[in-house]
């Protein structure tokens, strides 16, 4: 299976942190964003780690990825889209797909034997591109490879 990232949410880890802080803060969004910028990546790491620990996976739904996927059979993709409701796949040609998923679904795919091969390919691609090093390390134990 070949996976190539087409697009991902900007500032994914800060976006997850924004969603998490939104639940507990009365402040306007600009103040939350400024607070998160000021506290920096260590604080985002704390929030993401806490969400994973508490299994509050809803906050990961705001980090979205779109990928080009090759060499995936229709039956396999059909099974995954029926099993994971936030997974969106559009068949392009032969065994090639346009795939959109959020980071919650990625975590769930990772934990499911049927979804693990796709999850591993996506996580490897994210790691190589250095898209979300903090999230990848905490959720999947992956270190970013990008320079």
């Amino acid at each position, binding site marked *: 299976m070949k996976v190539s990232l*087409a697009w991902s*949410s900007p500032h994914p880890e800060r976006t997850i942190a*924004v*969603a998490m802080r939104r639940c507990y803060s009365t402040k306007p*969004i600009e103040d939350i964003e400024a607070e998160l910028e000021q506290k920096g990546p260590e604080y985002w790491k704390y929030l993401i780690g806490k969400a994973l620990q508490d299994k509050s996976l809803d906050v990961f739904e705001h980090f979205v990825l779109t990928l*080009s996927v090759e060499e995936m059979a229709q039956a396999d993709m059909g099974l995954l889209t029926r099993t994971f409701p936030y997974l*969106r796949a*559009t068949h*392009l*040609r032969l065994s090639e797909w346009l795939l959109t998923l959020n980071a919650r679904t990625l975590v769930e795919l990772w934990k499911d034997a049927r979804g693990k091969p796709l999850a591993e390919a996506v996580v490897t691609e994210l790691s190589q591109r250095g898209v979300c090093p903090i999230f990848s390390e905490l959720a999947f134990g992956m270190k970013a490879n990008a320079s």
Partner: protein
Amino acid sequence: MRVKLLYHTELDAIKRVLAQKGVPFDPELVMDHIVYMFEIEDCSRVTTHQLVRHRAVSYDQESQRFSAATREGVVTPPSVQSNDAGYKAYDEALKAVYSAYEKMVTAGVPKEDARYVLPGAIKTKLVMTLNARSLMHLVWQRTALQAQWEIRELAVTLQRLAQETTPELWTKIIER
């Protein structure tokens, strides 16, 4: 009410994939892959109760378990505002509710339990992420004339922001 688009999928990134595969661009084809994240502030919980009926959407909303409610933070519908007797009744009810809330919190009742008396009019804040297909369905239903005024105002704003940033997608769909 204040609505802000926090990010959206770059349509050009999706178009590049289609071009590489030799697939012609079609708005219908990519609607599931164009995503918008919005911040919505100072709309009522009456409206967010209607909003969360829309599925395949991700929401994270300000919790009343942790934040204290204030009398100032309520939405007053225009039909109440413009009706003297109606407004008097509304105001009296809110004063009674907030007085009860504050007494409970002062007496040591946790905010998560004291909030049971709070009104649907209370203002709230949330982030919402959804794809173009879900957003178009929301807009289609909630801009209808029979939709309630506050969620209609929200739906019109969501549509305007999405249309401004991804005009090609929305214009072609609306043209159909």
